[in-house]
């Protein structure tokens, strides 16, 4: 054991004695009390910040301001033309899309809605916020509708050979 380690151990062992001695002096007593109050305050603040971030949830998309209002087919064409530029413009933005439902697809207990450009096969796909799932389940192929959602991004599918643009936390606007 090194001298330094031994010194540390002795200091630790004598801590209660050191504190008792410090408390005997009124000036030290005051400093310790304030230190305890500040430490307690910081602990509470830290706890409050952690609680705030841990319990954060996404806002209701229906109440969010729309960044872009678009028509489904020209919107798909923008991604087909230059998906990098389109992603720069639309990714993680709230977008209101007007178009015709081409398919409804069950995904577990939920439902996804698709709007497809039938000439190329590229499509938009909307996953819905839980609180708006019932609105999605009322839609059927052929319905002309407006869906508002958070645009994730558009990517090229090597499996299907087409572009697809995904939306999350969507809601039906013209319900």
């Amino acid at each position, binding site marked *: 054991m090194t001298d330094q380690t031994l010194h540390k151990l002795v200091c630790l062992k004598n801590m209660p004695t050191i504190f008792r001695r410090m408390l005997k002096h009124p000036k030290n007593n005051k400093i310790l009390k304030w230190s305890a109050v500040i430490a307690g305050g910081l602990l509470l603040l830290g706890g409050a910040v952690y609680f705030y*971030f*841990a319990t*954060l*949830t*996404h806002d209701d998309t229906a109440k969010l301001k729309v960044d872009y209002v678009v028509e489904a087919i020209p919107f798909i064409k923008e991604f087909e033309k230059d998906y990098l530029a389109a*992603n720069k413009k639309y*990714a*993680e933005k709230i977008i209101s899309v007007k178009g015709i439902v081409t398919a409804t*697809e*069950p*995904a*577990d207990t*939920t439902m*996804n809605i*698709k709007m497809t450009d039938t000439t190329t096969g590229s*499509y938009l*796909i909307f*996953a819905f916020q839980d609180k708006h799932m019932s609105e999605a389940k009322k839609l059927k192929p052929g319905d002309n509708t407006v869906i508002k959602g958070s645009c*994730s*991004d558009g*990517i090229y*599918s*090597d*499996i*299907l050979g087409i572009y*697809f643009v*995904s*939306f*999350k*936390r969507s809601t039906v606007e013209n319900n």
Partner: protein
Amino acid sequence: MKKTILSLIIATVSMMTFAQKKTSTSAIVAFDASTAIDNLPKAENKTAIAAIDPAKNTVQFEAAIKNFAFANPKIQEHFNQESWLNSDKFPKATFSGIITNPSAVNFKKDGAYNVTVEGDLTIKGKTNKVTAPATIVVIGNTLKTTAAFNIKLADFGVEGQPITAGKVSAEPKISVSAELN
């Protein structure tokens, strides 16, 4: 004679239908990196693309990283940032593999079959071999599949303080399910 021709046509059409590649654009990929001290890092992507080719015994998946939906927006932000999945640079995760025991499944007969799938999983531009048990349920022309496996985040270049602090599992569970037509 007419009956024979009709039977042949029906058989040919049925075989062609079974041989076709089955796909889904609403496959579900779930990511669970929760730990005993933090249950927040878990998400689902319900718009993944899946494909099974019964003729070639191939299995494929593609999932847009940005479409993994977390309950907590802060965790979602961290998941996509440069030091984690870097979704701006690597927008999708892909899997391409084969059924290693194709004789265990009969795509022409309804039933539940246990198979093993092996292939290349690419996340954040890094590719690693993955082997996973999977179930394929054949119902007419529809295939319902499920699979689950664990990955090592470090193998895909994903490392950070939350992992060493035990807030994010170093070996999250990936679950995949799809209904393919």
